[in-house]
Structure formats: C-alpha cells, structure tokens
C-alpha cells in the first residue's frame, strides 16, 4: 500500500512554485516600468516644451549659453531614413512575399521564405557592417549619408516585411483566389487587387512594426548615416537619427546633453510603445470582425 502521506509537502511545493512564478513575472516586468518611469522623470521636463521638436541639439555648451535645445534635426533624420528604407523594403518585401506565397515554384518560394526568416535573426550591426563593407568603402561620395543609412535599415526591414506579408497572405482563404479566377480576372490583378487587399491589415501592421523596429536602431547607423546635429541639407551627407542622438548624448559628460537624450528617449519610447499597443488592438479587432479567435 503506497502512502500519500507527503501530501502536504506536495501541495506546499505546488503553491511555492505558483508564488515564485508570480514573482518572476514581476521581476520580468520591472525593467519596463523602470524604463518608462525614469524616462518620464529625467526626460519629461525637456520633452514637454514645444521647441524641443524643432530646436537643434546642444553642442558642448553650459546651461547658460544654450537657450533652447531640441531634437528637431534627428526627428527629421529618422523620418528621412525610414522613408528611404520603407521605399525599398516595402515593395521588395511585399512582392517577394507574393512570390513565395502565391507562386510556389519548385521550392524557390520556400527558399525565399526560409531565407527571410533566417535574415530576421541577423544582428543589426552585421547589416550595418555589410553596407559599410561595400557601399561606404567603394562609394566614397555617399559613404556617410542618408543613402547608406537607408540601405542598412532596409536590409533590416525587408525580411520582416516579407515574413509578415507572407503570413497575412497565407491566412486569406483559397476560396477568395478561386472566386476571382473563376470570374476571369487575370492572376496578377487578382493577387494585387483582391488577395493582397484582403491581407492588407496584417501587411500594414507588419510594415508598421518593421518601421518601429528601424526607428529604434542605432547600431547599423553608426558607420553609415554617421549622425549629425544639424538639419539635413541633402541626402548625400551624414544625417542624424533619434537612436544615434540618444547613444552619443548618453555617453556625454555634459548634463544638458544627457537631459536631451532622456527627452529623446521618452519621445521614442512613447512613440514605439503606443504604436505597438494600438496595432495590437487593431489586429485583435480585425481578427474578431473576420470571425477568428
């Protein structure tokens, strides 16, 4: 006869694990809370002044000689870089995903899908290094510019767009494709105007998330876009970006620069987190409307 007289000990263990796992969640979420809190405390003062978004970042000046400081050039820089990167990665990514999903040609489609999946795992610094190794070295006129920076970011964004577009296309039921073809619509029109449109919410969300990812990247821009404290005058010159500003000013010994970095951090953080939350809500609502879970 087996005695289960260690019952109390078993229950205690189960409850202890429940408590420990709850503590684990708290420990895991603490950094998120801490980062948002610190960003507000240290950057809130600077951020909530209108000129922060238009003024130029401070060079090494003391609190007395800098009247207004801001992150204007870097916001513009980020927008330009993301614009260039999206201009490349969105068409390329969507078309490549269409090929992989709609034209499954002898395993080539699967190779593309697998490659894109693998590419999402490549460290962003490597993407920057690869752009550096070719474009920066062999094209000295645009070596450090919005062009190379945009290229580096597009290398990061494209695999993400491919994967999310592919997922979105995959979910579109085949009946939609068959109905379109049965109506005599040519395949390319059917794909673009009907299937892709059906997948549009997922695709748009994927693009948005890729953009947010690129907006936060500093590593690949360190030796491509290089960074700048002035408003960009052309695409062929070094250009600033928010993450670069944060990096440079974070390491600065001058407290006013550090303050600007915190302001930029708060701004970037709020932007990314809000876009993330909103896009999740939108996906959820869209999925519910389409009758999914």
């Amino acid at each position: 006869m087996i005695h289960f007289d260690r019952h109390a000990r078993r229950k205690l263990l189960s409850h202890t694990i429940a408590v420990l796992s709850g503590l684990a969640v708290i420990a895991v979420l603490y950094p998120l809370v801490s980062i948002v809190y610190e960003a507000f405390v240290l950057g809130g003062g600077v951020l909530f002044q209108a000129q922060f978004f238009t003024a130029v970042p401070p060079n090494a000046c003391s609190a007395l000689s800098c009247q207004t400081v801001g992150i204007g050039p870097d916001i513009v820089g980020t927008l330009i870089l993301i614009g260039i990167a999206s201009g490349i990665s969105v068409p390329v990514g969507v078309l490549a995903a269409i090929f992989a999903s709609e034209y499954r040609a002898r395993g080539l489609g699967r190779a593309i899908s697998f490659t894109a999946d693998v590419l999402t795992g490549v460290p962003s610094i490597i993407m920057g290094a690869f752009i550096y190794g070719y474009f920066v070295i062999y094209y000295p006129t645009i070596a450090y510019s919005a062009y190379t920076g945009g290229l580096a970011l597009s290398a990061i964004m494209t695999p993400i767009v491919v994967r999310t577009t592919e997922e979105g296309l995959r979910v579109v039921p085949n009946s939609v494709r068959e109905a379109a073809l049965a109506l005599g619509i040519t395949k390319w029109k059917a794909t673009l105007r009907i299937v892709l449109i059906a997948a549009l919410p997922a695709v748009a969300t994927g693009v948005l998330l890729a953009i947010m990812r690129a907006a936060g990247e500093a590593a690949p821009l360190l030796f491509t876009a290089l960074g700048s404290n002035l408003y960009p005058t052309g695409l062929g010159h070094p250009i600033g970006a928010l993450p670069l500003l944060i990096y440079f000013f974070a390491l600065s010994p001058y407290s006013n620069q550090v303050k600007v970095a915190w302001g930029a951090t708060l701004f970037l953080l709020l932007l990314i987190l809000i876009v993330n939350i909103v896009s999740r809500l939108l996906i959820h609502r869209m999925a519910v409307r389409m009758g999914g879970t």
Partner: protein
Amino acid sequence: MLGGDKIRTEHLTAYYGPKPAISDVTLGFAEHAVSAIIGPSGCGKSTLIRCLNRMHETVPRTRVEGQVVLDGEDIYQLDPVRVRRRVGMVFQKPNPFVTMSIYNNVSAALRFNGRPSREETDRQVVRSLQQAALWDEVKDRIDAPAVSLSGGQQQRLCIARALAAEPEVLLMDEPCSALDPIATAKIEELIKKLKEEYTVIIVTHNMQQAARVADNTAFMYIGKLIEFGPTEDLFERPKESLTEAYITGRFG
C-alpha cells in the same frame, strides 16, 4: 441496490457557464459493482461522471451545486488532489503521456510522492499491468514508448496507470468508443474482473455494452436522471416510458 453506496450524488447540478448540463441528480453507486450511465448524446452523462472526481471544475466558467458523497464525506469539501487519487478516471480517447515509456506511464502516479524504491515501483507496475490484462503483451518491451502501442493497448495502459494510483473508485468515460470490437471485448472482460477490487462507474453510449457489463444502470435524458436500477430490471421492465422509448431505439 446491492451492498452499500460507495459514492453517491445528492441533488447535483453542474453548469457550463449559465447553462446546467445536469440538474438535481441524486444517484448512488454500489461498492464493488459496475454501474453504467446511458443516454442519448447531450444527456449529461459525461458531465456527471466528471463531477465525481472534480474534473468538471478544471474547465473555465463551470459551477457545481449539490454534493457528491464518498464514504460519507462530501468531496467538494475535500482537497481535490486527494479526491482524484481516490477516484481515478479513464478517458474516452486513450491519453498516455506521449513522451514516456510504458513503464513510466504506469508508474507516473507513484512518482508524485517522491521516489519509492525501484523494487516497490516494479512490483506495482507489474501488478497494475496484470490487472489491466496488458502485462503479457508488453512484458518484453516495458521501456518502449507508450505511443508505440495499438489503440486498445494504449487504453489498457491508461487503465493500468489509473489503477497504479490505487483508487477506490474507477470512472470510465466511454472507454471503448475509440476502439475496435476485439479491443472492446478485452476491456469489457477486464471491467467485470475489476469490480472485485474497485467500484466501477462507466459511461457508455452503447446499451448492449451496459447490458453486458453493468450490475446497475442509470438512464439520463437532457440533464436529468430518468431511471436507475439493476440492469436487468431497467432493460426488461423499465418503469418510465422515456426509458422504454430509448432502449427500444425510438430515439438517441
């Protein structure tokens, strides 16, 4: 009713969300007997049996009213973990632990209590497999993966696994519905032997099976207990017209 009631329900009502799946069921199951619960789909027989070992509440948004009394104690006042050790269950679709061997499946319950000695575990495993009439078929490959067995063998493995926990009551929720006739016959043989040591309660959609193995049978319809009594009486001299309609095949 033969012998005393080992386990009985008192005005048991069980809900899925706002809807009651069974209402006001009062029913006693005799010790060392096989009791069957029959009825058309949706009559609540599975819900009823899952209340007897407190598995019903593991599903979200469920509720139970009333009592289930095991040896004089209401199981809803006891620790569910203890209850489930005393009231074991075999499921409709065999569900051996897929990552484990035959041996480890049977000994699973023993290992919840720390590590009994190897000899002790071996003895229990052999005994349980013999009780489940599976020992001869697996004694040469006791460390083989459980999923390498056939459907009928897997179900007997699940029976052995449940018996290794040394329950007092064994619940069987349509244990043969996923099996072929030969495997079904083996398990029915088994059930008739098991009542010597355990109290067996079996849910079945197959009336002939109830007639073959059960000492007592309960007939349920849309969540209510219609009739309950010795199997022979229920089938040959049903008291309710509904019962008679069901067993003569007029519906369900």
